[in-house]
């Protein structure tokens, strides 16, 4: 099971982290990854200066724009599952 943790600490929240939740769910649905990927909430990961933060199986990724973040999440999970 791949664990995707979305940072919902105050800094990321203010940058729009909660908006990403629904989009990430859509990505998971689109690729039918529901049995393979679990979405979780997380607290501040310390990457506040680098944009929005997400951990995929303990690897931290961060992007400044929501679109870039979503793309990176999609490619990372895709990579892990191939």
């Amino acid at each position: 099971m791949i664990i995707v943790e979305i940072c919902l600490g105050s800094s990321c929240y203010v940058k729009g982290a909660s908006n990403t939740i629904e989009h990430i769910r859509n990505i998971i649905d689109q690729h039918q990854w529901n049995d393979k990927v679990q979405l979780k909430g997380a607290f501040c990961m310390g990457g506040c200066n680098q944009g929005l933060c997400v951990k995929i199986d303990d690897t931290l990724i961060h992007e400044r724009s929501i679109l870039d973040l979503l793309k990176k999440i999609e490619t990372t999970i895709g990579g892990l599952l191939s």
Partner: protein
Amino acid sequence: MGLFDHEARQFKFDVLREVARKAFKGTLKDGFEDQLAHKLIPTMRADFRCCVYKEREIIRQRTRLAMGKSPSNHHDDFNPRQIVKVIDAACDGCTIKRIQITDSCRKCMAKSCVTACRFDAIAMSPTRAMIDHDKCKECGACVKSCPFHAIIETVRPCKASCPVDAISMDDDDLAVIDQSRCINCAACQSACPFGAIEDASWIVPVIELIKLDTPMIAMIAPSIQGQFDDATLGQIKAGIRLLGFKDVVEVATAADIVAWHENEELIHYMKHNVPLTTSCCPAFVNLAKQHFPEVYQKNMSTLASPMIVMARYLKHHHPDHGVVFIGPCVAKKQEAMQDHPNIDVDYVLTYEEIAAMLVALKIYLPDLDADKSVQASNVGRNFAFGGNVINALRQASPDQEMTFLGVYADGCHECKKQLQLIKHKRFDAHVLEGMSCAGGCVNGPAIIDNSKQARQRFIQENQANTQTITQTKATYDFCNIDMHRKHKGVSHDHR
């Protein structure tokens, strides 16, 4: 449910409730503010302001604040550490001339007002005395002189309530908060009769985390007792758990422990003849840090507040759990963020916000089975009332013979006075307890019920509590927990 007589606070509550409801359902989206504005102001009849369009704009801005965003759309100076914000649309732009002549003026023959004025700013017109505001220096001499008390002195409530002079008016007469001076005490929030100044809310991320099944522990401030009508503390704990928290603990536990350590610190300061100030009230700490920096360096207790200490204890035992503080306080929201990215407390919610969440989920506290756990002594629980930190210091003393002189500064203006005394070395006691809210935390800006009855309920319920500080210390092991503030300033070298 009409919780508040103050109509603006009722609107604030309604907005929080609706945002919470949507967030719990998972249907909260950007732009919800437009929907809510129409939902809460559905007709074409304006009940409170000039027109329904203004009323809707106010709701829009309140909704944005409830979602943790800046009230108006411009993000330029958005500072997440500035918790108290002006809702521009709601600000009445109270243009109050400080000295005004009222209808009580009888155009008397004594003309004491004219005589009293040293600036030639008052003259008698055919109908009554008139002030030339260009000449008026607002000294107030005329006010005192009128035998009919027909001259009044008024200051804009927000400006008058601010202890650090952080509020000014912009060119449109709207209130502006100087963020470098602001201590987030929220006195202005309580004072504004239009509810135009409010704290930003974090209910949305907390609810999102709950919905993602993130394990979270709620820590409740002692002043929560008695806040929800007749609901007992046990029922309050049970209700908060139902919101989605894994556990609910009392911050009073840490208050017991902090009182013990602060006692040791006091003995140390007394030996060196240096006055000690308490550090549990974040607005008081900010007042010292930002406006009396030398006192902050030398006299402020190095201990972290009970909220921070309790959070560290919880994180130590449950490293993957989130910690949310629930209290009556706005400054605590800023305190939680200040050591970012070293986070002890992940989020802070107020009683207003919790009440909104309970109502959103239709959780009715009096119906619940109480969580009867007792986690603290009354010493820790009484931190809710002003003056009790000093009492706690007396009772926490291992040597019951220890005596000291304590001063309690009730409210921010009093705190300023005492800090001035310490600064000029004219403070005559050993310890200063500073509380920004007069009466203590039970009168905090986000309290629901500040009636005598709420106080009675608190006191009556605790009569059955026999736990002592010693028992708290025996039950909860705080040995590995760092008790000290991160921003200590220089290490203490008492001269």
